[in-house]
Structures are given as structure tokens and as C-alpha cells.
């Protein structure tokens, strides 16, 4: 297991470099937007990766609620953290792309609002994790994750209805994608997924180590004779 991680790390680095090269050099330039469009190859894979990570968080939380498996709890924490990072990337690269193309940094259309609310829900999950001083934080966090995940369809559905009933700024998008662009997009998605997996794995090991250390300290304090523990 210990040797796999560096090998995977090198492979991921190579894949990310290749994906970067593809995105910036090989991919055909978009007709109307020009080179700015290349942010698309970071924006969309980040979004997909974030959604997958949040979905894994939901699964791990449900598993923890049923089985109380500590590893599932660490997976839930890790995927939420990395998912929030990727979601932040989406919310930052979006306006960067929007400004030169649409002339505005932000608009309250369906997709942006839903992504922002998704981000808010998982940031609140991380707040609970950090601020809770109960001994059973994993259970509370898992409950919150389940509620949050159940809320997501409501968010999308309600905001969809809300925003399609009102006049919208006219935006490009939709329609088919050039197969070469799709190819580059999928390569970038693969690279991002590998990177996300590596970061999650690394964070998982870190968290597990931290918990083992805390547990060892607790046991030591309990077993030490009275008065001899600093």
C-alpha cells in the first residue's frame, strides 16, 4: 500500500500535465469565445468531481448511520472537505469565465444559484464538524449529511422553477460539443478525479493517524497512575 501512493502520485502528475497540455494547446479554439473558453476544461471537470465526492459523502454517511464504521466516517469527512474545495474552484472559475464572455461576474440563474447553495450546505457540514465538541460528532455530522443530500433535489427543482419563470439574461451554451473538445474534457476529468482520489487518500491517512494518536493519548491517560500524567 505504501508504495502504491507515490506511484499513483507520479502517474497523476503526468496525467495532469498531459491534460493541461491538451486543454491549453491541443484543444481547438472556440469560435465565439476564443481562448477564454479553455477555462471550461477546469470548470466542468471540477463540478463533476465535486458532485461525485458529495455523492460519496452521502453514501458514507448513510453507511456510518447504519453500521457505525469509523472508516466510513473518515471517508465522509474527507470527501466533504475535498468536495468543498472543488466546488469552490467551480464558483471561482465560473465568474472568471463569465466576466469576459457575458460581461458580468455573477447572475442568479439556475445553475449558479444551485451550485452556490450546494456549497453552502457542505460548508455548514464542515462547520458542524469543526465546532462540535460532542464525543459523537460523526453521528451528528452523518445525520446532517443525509439531510443535506436530501435537500439537494429540492434545491435544484425549486430554483429551476423559480428561474425559468422569470426573464433570463441571454447566455450561450447548450447544444452539441465538438468531439475533440469532449475528448479533452474527459481527459481533464480523469486527471482531476485521480488528483481528487490522491488528495482524499492522503487526507484519509492523515485523519486516521490523528485519531490513532488521540486514542493512544486517551488510553495512556486512563492507564497511567494518578498524578503521573503531565
Amino acid at each position, binding site marked *: 500500500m505504501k508504495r502504491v501512493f507515490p506511484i499513483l502520485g507520479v502517474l497523476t502528475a503526468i496525467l495532469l500535465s498531459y491534460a493541461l497540455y491538451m486543454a491549453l494547446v491541443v484543444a481547438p479554439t472556440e469560435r465565439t469565445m476564443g481562448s477564454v473558453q479553455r477555462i471550461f476544461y477546469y470548470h466542468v471537470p471540477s463540478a463533476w468531481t465535486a458532485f461525485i465526492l458529495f455523492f460519496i459523502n452521502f453514501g458514507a454517511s448513510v453507511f456510518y*448511520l447504519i453500521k457505525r464504521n469509523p472508516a466510513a466516517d473518515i471517508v465522509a469527512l474527507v470527501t466533504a472537505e475535498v468536495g468543498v474545495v472543488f466546488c469552490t474552484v467551480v464558483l471561482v472559475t465560473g465568474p472568471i469565465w463569465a466576466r469576459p464572455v457575458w460581461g458580468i461576474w455573477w447572475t442568479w440563474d439556475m445553475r449558479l444559484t444551485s451550485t452556490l*447553495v450546494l456549497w*453552502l*450546505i457542505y*460548508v*455548514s457540514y464542515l*462547520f*458542524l464538524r469543526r*465546532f*462540535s*465538541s*460532542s464525543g*459523537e460528532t460523526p*453521528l*451528528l455530522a452523518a*445525520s*446532517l449529511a*443525509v*439531510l*443535506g443530500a*436530501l*435537500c439537494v433535489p*429540492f*434545491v435544484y*427543482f*425549486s*430554483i429551476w*422553477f*423559480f428561474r425559468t419563470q422569470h426573464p433570463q439574461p441571454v447566455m450561450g451554451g447548450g447544444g452539441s460539443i465538438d468531439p475533440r473538445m469532449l475528448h479533452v474534457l474527459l481527459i481533464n476529468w480523469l486527471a482531476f478525479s485521480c488528483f481528487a482520489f490522491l488528495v482524499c487518500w492522503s487526507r484519509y491517512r492523515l485523519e486516521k493517524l490523528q485519531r490513532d494518536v488521540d486514542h493512544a493519548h486517551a488510553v495512556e491517560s486512563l492507564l497511567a497512575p494518578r498524578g503521573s500524567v503531565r
Partner: protein
Amino acid sequence: MTAPTGITRVSLLKDLRLEWRSKDAINSMLFFSLLVVVVFSFSFDPTAEESRQIAGGLIWVAFLFAAVVALNQTWARELRNQVLDAYRVSPAPANSLFVAKVLGNFIFVSVLEALMTPLFIVFYRLRALGPAWQLLLVAVVGTWALVVNGTFFAAMSLRTRSREIMLPLLLFPISIPALLAMVQSTTAILNGEGARFWIVLLVTYDLVFTTVCLLLFETVLNAE
């Protein structure tokens, strides 16, 4: 008296009695709500035509903040007197306590809404162009959505640092679809448009989240 409904009734009556004698929550909610209304009146000039467009949002924001005041004190008394520990040790089902708390909060917030609504009508010169009974339905269903999630999250944030701020931090993101529905349905009814989609969404939201909260409350209660 050990049937779940008996426990719920006893718990609810205890809370109502305590509140009736002290009137802590209702007074602070009322005053806070009034302050919010006044502050909003500085930001938006409440002339008749514009006010009908924004009134829905203003009303529900005021009620949301006031509800947070009520929710924050939901479990405070129980925590102070170790009642929660006693409850956990007893064979009483946790859900009975949860339902009692939710109903208590629902009654408090409904009383607040009933008292504040005439004030809103006066301050913003509101007149519903649509069927006014639907506003009552929206109020009931919307308040339930806020209160059921709020009571659940209040229990969840019992053992957190900064307990008072944790509750809104957890409650607001998850309540966004319900808030959107409440605001949009109120605005639609005030302007004589259809609110059926939003009311249906609210009812669905209520059903889903009440069920999930009931399923998970025992876990949360024992997790403290």
C-alpha cells in the same frame, strides 16, 4: 401515561405552561421581529405598489430570524436542569419529545406570526390580490418547515462551541428551498398569481424532512 402521545402531550403542556408564565420567548421574538420590520423600512420605501413585490420576502425574513430566537431556547431549559439526561435514561421514545418540542415551537412562532401580520399589513399597506386563505395555508406549511428542521438542528448544536450561531449556520442552507417557496408563494398570492407549485413543493418538503427528522432524532439525542 406511557403511550407516546401521552408523553408528547405532557411535554407540550409543560412547555406551554412554562412559556405562559415567563413569556420569555414570545416577548423577545415579538420585539426582535418589530425591530427587523423597522430596520427594513429604512432600506425599502414601502409605497403600496412596490411593497407588494417585496413584502413576501421581508415578512418571511423577519419570521425566520424571530423563529431562530425561539429555536435557540428550545433545549436550553432541558440542558440546564439535566432533563435531557433523565429523558435519555428513561424508556420514553425520543420522538415523543421531538414532536412535543416541534409543536411547542410551532405554536410560539404561529402566535408571533398572528401578532405581526396586522402590523405588516399596516406598515406596508398590503392587500392580497389573490385568495387570502392560501396565505394561511402557506403560513402553516412554511412555519412547520422552519420549525421541524430548526428543532432538529437545535438538538444537533447542543454540544457545539458557539451554539447560538451554529443553529442558523446549519438551518439556513438546508431551508433555502423552503424559504424560496414561502417567499415566492406569498408574493404570488399578494399579486394575484398562481402559487400552486410552491405550495405543493412546501408540502413535499415538509413530508420528506419531517420523516427524516423523526427517523434520525433518536440518534441525535443519544449522540450528545
